[in-house]
């Protein structure tokens, strides 16, 4: 039966991949979801007590969680908008005829933070924001601008976090836009120019529609990225000040650490559901766009 053996080889090839996916991907997720239906005190024992939806009811009755959920969604919207508009603007700048030599340097400069370990990057940012010797405020003072509250004020902490995260992530989005710009159909833009379209009109009606693939990719990556914001919070604010940066992922993690396993995993499941929803919607959208 050579044919069957031939097919069997493929299963052999896929075996290690399948094993890792099941052991370290699916199994922990199922365990986590299972724990969300059990009583925290018994969750990790051999025979946990099942409590149905009690943990879900509890988290949706917890004002801190609800606030964290709203905060997470708001932060995601803001961060995605800021990252993508910055990335698009910078990519257009680098792609324009205005920049010739030095393009690689500019590209490397914004991409280097992407491959810098996030812990190291955020440790530095935390001190750049320091109110007494941080460089951010020193620079603002030098320019005669008012001081920035940075991580110390509940009003500015989220913005401070967003800037540091933009530093770490935006380079990736710039690159995706650049890759898309490189395969643009230049003829269309030139034809529009001959027809007397202004630069803004050309951008709006010719360039932007052609950038849809990069926009879609960046949107999905960024939404998932910022919904899960975690390391920046751990390193820079620990959810503070006064809960201003307490996002769902961090709050759930804290609940884990104080043995509220049931509620923590329930929060994780809710966040997972949101991420999944976003991904599926984007996938559907992409399929429809392709058809």
């Amino acid at each position: 039966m050579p044919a069957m053996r031939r097919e069997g080889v493929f299963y052999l090839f896929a075996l290690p991949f399948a094993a890792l996916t099941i052991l370290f991907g699916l199994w922990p997720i199922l365990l986590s979801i299972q724990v969300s239906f059990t009583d925290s005190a018994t969750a990790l024992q051999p025979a946990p007590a099942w409590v149905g939806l009690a943990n879900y009811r509890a988290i949706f009755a917890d004002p801190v969680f609800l606030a964290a959920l709203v905060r997470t969604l708001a932060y995601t919207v803001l961060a995605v908008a800021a990252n993508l508009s910055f990335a698009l603007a910078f990519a257009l700048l680098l792609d324009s005829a205005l920049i010739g030599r030095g393009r690689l340097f500019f590209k490397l400069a914004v991409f280097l933070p992407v491959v810098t370990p996030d812990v190291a990057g955020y440790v530095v940012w935390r001190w750049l924001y320091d109110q007494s010797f941080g460089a951010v405020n020193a620079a603002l003072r030098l320019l005669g601008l008012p001081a920035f509250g940075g991580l110390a004020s509940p009003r500015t902490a989220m913005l401070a976090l967003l800037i540091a995260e933009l530093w770490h992530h935006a380079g990736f989005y710039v690159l995706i836009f650049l890759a898309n710009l490189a395969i643009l159909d230049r003829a269309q833009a030139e034809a529009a120019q001959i027809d007397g379209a202004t630069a803004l009109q050309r951008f709006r009606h010719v360039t932007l529609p052609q950038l849809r693939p990069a926009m879609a990719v960046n949107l999905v990556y960024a939404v998932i990225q910022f919904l899960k914001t975690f390391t920046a919070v751990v390193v820079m604010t620990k959810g503070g000040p006064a809960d201003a940066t307490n996002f769902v992922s961090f709050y759930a993690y804290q609940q884990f650490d104080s043995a509220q396993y049931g509620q923590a995993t329930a929060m994780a499941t809710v966040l997972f559901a949101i991420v999944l929803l976003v991904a599926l919607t984007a996938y559907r959208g992409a399929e429809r766009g392709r058809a």
Partner: protein
Amino acid sequence: MFKRLFGAAIAATLLAAPVQAQQLAIWHDLGDNGTKWLNEVGAEFAKDHPGVSIRPISYPTDQWFGRAIGALNTNTAPDLLFNNYERVIRVATQTGKISDMRPVLAAIPDHGFLTEDDLRVATFDGKMIILPVQRVQMAFGVRKSWLEKTGGQFPQTWDDARRLAEAFQAGDPEGTGKGTVFGFALEAAKPRDLVHMLDLFTFGAGLRHTLVDPDGNVVIDEPQHARVLAEVLKTYGAYKLVPPDTINYSFNEMYQVIEGGRTGMFRVGDWNVAKWDSQAIKGDFLVGPWPRFFPDKQNAVVIGGMRGVAVPVNAPNKPLADAFAAFLLGKPAQQASLRIMGSAVRPDLDMAGLSERQRMFAQPKWALIAYDFPESTLPWYPELEAAFHRKLLTAIATPPADMDAFIKETAAEMRALVKQLQARKG
């Protein structure tokens, strides 16, 4: 050939394994100093217990909690835990797997040096969850050279301390420019950070409770308590006498401010003295009691906690772990504790070789006042404290126009919460 090699390998493995190699893991959060101390004690312990080694592992406090609780709940516990009593209480309530140390204590012949207060603190929910090993004293410290530069004196009253703080900030004592140094170093990020600071000022001023009395009555709006609370909150906020980032500080950031030479007044724990005598601020500090707030109350140095050793019920090697826990109360371990950590519980220790400041803690001549440890008698206290902390943080972030009204309102909220918590926990 192959067989012979194989046989030799097995023989080598057998020979290499010591007679009874056993390792006891002990998880603490005291950093390199704590590890050094436990290693020394471990070496001493091994003399009577051949083949036994001690493996101290230090985690940052957050991680210590998560790990300890997770490990006890999943039966992957270490042999011993070492930390402050209130942290062990949290592990105990969330795992129910901290063993009762009373039999271990009973087996120690000369445990009379532990006072009733010590034992009360160590007891939670009818069980003795730690053997008290280090009594923790916290005094008030001032930078000596800054005092000299500004011509001030060690502050006796709170008004003195405030005036001194203003003078430090105006005087630029380090020559680094205005706005770079501060009157006080405090912490606020987590409930224990902020309430602990409040504890120090409150007890240091001679009051007996910070938030509730032993019966669970909220005390924060009683006149003297309210005064201390208002002053502490203003110090965090309106007075502008602490670094503006303080709202995000936990103890490690607070230490950075102290050791980086950016504050004039700060907490000095007995465990800080050995390091600060020789490194970091290199002996440039004076210590004394916390500032006096009220003429009718004696101000004092605060006994703010008790560190001790706990044994999980699912410790891999419980009998040996119990033996090591008891050993930590013996003279050699206590002597090393005093020398390296700056604190101990035995009174019969050799004081030679201690610095002058270390001796001030080891043989205190100043007034002492012990923290009331509500965590050990009121099981819902941590929850109340967390809510209190949330409330206080809002006042620090946006200082209320009317502090008295804020304190009254907070007191009312806390009373309602206490009722709710008492009802829930039966």
